[in-house]
């Protein structure tokens, strides 16, 4: 069996890639995808440690995460859609009417 810390490292790496995407991408969809990556990093942990601990809590929770991620994306795309209609752009940095 693969030692647990490797899963942790893998998940951390995926999570960091997600964070990197969040920080560098200004396209709203890419932002969303990066967040999905972060969620999936969590899922890796859940599934891996579900196996590790021998219970299905983690796996079930992974399913929940996926469901919620899907719902999140549904809402997100809706918001991005109205963003495009109002600002003619899907660039998250374009909407800066409110600040300070």
């Amino acid at each position: 069996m693969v030692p647990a810390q490797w899963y942790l490292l893998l998940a951390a790496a995926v999570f960091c890639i997600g964070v990197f995407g969040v920080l560098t991408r200004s396209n709203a969809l890419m932002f969303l995808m990066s967040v999905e990556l972060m969620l999936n990093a969590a899922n890796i942990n859940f599934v891996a440690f579900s196996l590790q601990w021998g219970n299905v809590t983690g796996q079930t929770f992974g399913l929940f995460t996926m469901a919620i991620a899907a719902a999140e994306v549904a809402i997100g795309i809706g918001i991005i859609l109205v963003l495009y209609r109002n600002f003619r752009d899907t660039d998250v940095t374009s909407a800066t009417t409110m600040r300070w």
Partner: protein
Amino acid sequence: MNPWIAIGALAVMGVGIPLGMMAVSAILRPSVPEQGKSAIYESGEIPTGTTRIRFNIQYYMVALLFVIFDIETVLIFPWTVIYRSALESGVGLGKVLFPMLLFIGILTMPLVWAWRNGAVEWVKSPRATSRKVEGES
């Protein structure tokens, strides 16, 4: 035996087979360069524009409806796995079946709502009456 050997073998096979096929075909086939061969295959249509085209937003609604069923399936799956064994171990039918019926019932409600609000109607022109077409969730 190290369990990684199997994974390594799988990886070698996975990469080796396509590479091998391409190599073999490159060796065997005659080389006759022609413009039509390097064009993108579009079932006979002449390709225009780039790959980055916009899809009609109404696909979004379809995608969302798909998500509903997708999630439904995902969440029903563990239930199906334990359904029979739960029944066999003596848990009553009401306790096993009813929660899932409730869940599906709750999920049905938004589906009906989306249907009634026109999520599945395909509007010809997106500029024409677009009311209540792309309502969220």
